[in-house]
């Protein structure tokens, strides 16, 4: 066990023993990483803040249930990812602008000058188009650099499932990014975003609704 992991366990133990400072210290050690996971999985800062808040409050209250079978950071990430997935599924019944085509277009540099910030924006926009379970897998493994074994613990899924989600997620991202690449003559046509919910629950975008409601009051 690394020194950091041991420190995390000690802090959690102090928290469950009633040390009122310990959980704050634990949060301070991990909050940036948890924030990044939530932001990139959900694609929306407000949603990410909601998810991390839910996760940390849940962790605060359930610390006594931590069994030590995984690192504390794994445990915190697991709770955060679960909060993200829960929130994404709740949001899916009323999609936000984060799910619309417009966001993807906004990341498309019009001047052809494609710099690192554009690339990051494009990746973020593309991530938003992934089903949340694929986004979470890609974020945990490719962005945050967890091993597949750790990711399996975080995502509470077999390693093979994690690999499959990553592979499907990367394929989708590659498509979307090629679509965004400036001057790409062979861009793959955009695909419908398959949020991991019933498509019937997704309302059309505002623009689409206007068109769809032609003739209605």
């Amino acid at each position: 066990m690394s020194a950091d992991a041991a420190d995390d366990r000690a802090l959690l133990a102090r928290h469950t023993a009633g040390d009122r400072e310990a959980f704050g210290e634990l949060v301070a050690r991990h909050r940036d990483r948890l924030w990044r996971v939530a932001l990139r999985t959900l694609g929306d800062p407000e949603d990410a803040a909601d998810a991390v808040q839910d996760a940390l409050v849940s962790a605060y209250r359930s610390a006594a249930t931590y069994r030590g079978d995984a690192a504390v950071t794994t445990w915190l990430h697991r709770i955060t990812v679960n909060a993200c997935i829960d929130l994404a599924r709740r949001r899916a019944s009323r999609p936000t602008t984060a799910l619309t085509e417009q966001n993807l277009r906004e990341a498309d540099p019009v001047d052809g000058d494609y710099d690192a910030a554009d690339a990051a924006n494009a990746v973020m926009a593309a991530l938003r188009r992934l089903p949340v379970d694929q986004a979470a897998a890609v974020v945990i493994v490719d962005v945050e650099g967890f091993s597949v074994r750790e990711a399996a613990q975080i995502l509470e899924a077999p390693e093979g499932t994690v690999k499959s989600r990553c592979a499907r997620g990367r394929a989708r991202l590659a498509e979307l990014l090629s679509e965004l690449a400036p001057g790409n003559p062979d861009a793959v046509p955009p695909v419908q975003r398959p949020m991991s919910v019933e498509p019937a629950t997704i309302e059309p975008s505002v623009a689409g609704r206007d068109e769809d409601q032609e003739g209605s009051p």
Partner: protein
Amino acid sequence: MTEHPGAGHVDLEVLAELDEGVAGPQVEQAARAHLEHCAGCRERMAHLRTTRALLSALPADRMPEAVQTRIDAALATASVDGSGTVVPMRRRTRVWNSPAVAGAAAVAAVVVLIGALVAGNVIHHGKKTQTASAPLASEGNRQGSAAGAASIKEWATGANYTAATIPTLVPRLVTGTPPAGAPAPPLTASGSGGASGATTTDSKSAAVPAATPVPEGAFTQDAMRMDSSALLGCGTILAGGVPTVPVAVDFASWNGKPAVIFALPAVGHPESLDVWVVRSTCSTSSLDVYFRRIPRPAG
């Protein structure tokens, strides 16, 4: 799902599975054979790897300050719910005017408390205001400014408050019908307008100079009994550094341990009172408090 223009090419998802090592053996064999002679699919495989590189190159963003503030407040509230203790997660500059805090009701008050923990200048501010504030009149400034005349309905009921009884007991401090259970006369002194009756409130003058030396920025429960300025100083700490005159105070107990119950005006919420239970010394550095917002009783 991942159709590529041109029949016979390897599906992008299959390429990704191949790259991840999760393609079945037959699929892998066929795909590798195709890749041998298809530059286009090799390019798409390279594109997949570029995608991974782009993912790993995303900037290491830090949690924004506003989100930290909000989460600290949520955790403080969670700790209130669970153990009756607000945990200052970290010190920071005042967040009173932070947009992230504005309008956040009870949570905001907890944030403000945390904001008050940052520095002794909060206390200096309170004292300065108090020195200038002359004897306080009998009817309070309900909006919480200590700069004007105000009174504190001060009690020493000795009642045992709990989270469950706060919503019923505290309004009675305000309306003048203190909690049942042998209310005791206030233990005021130092020339304040000390009440004598066991059930009467004490509209304590706050013009009393700080006669009892206390550590800078700290007010003990005894100091608060003896000295109105200590009460006001603690009220100011609780209100996040905004000079605030408590509507009512009760020297009582919390879950069996001595505590001072503060009912403060809820700034921006005239219909509410912020109830703080101070269980130990009231200071900027170690505040052991319980917080709850309740409706302000009529009268």
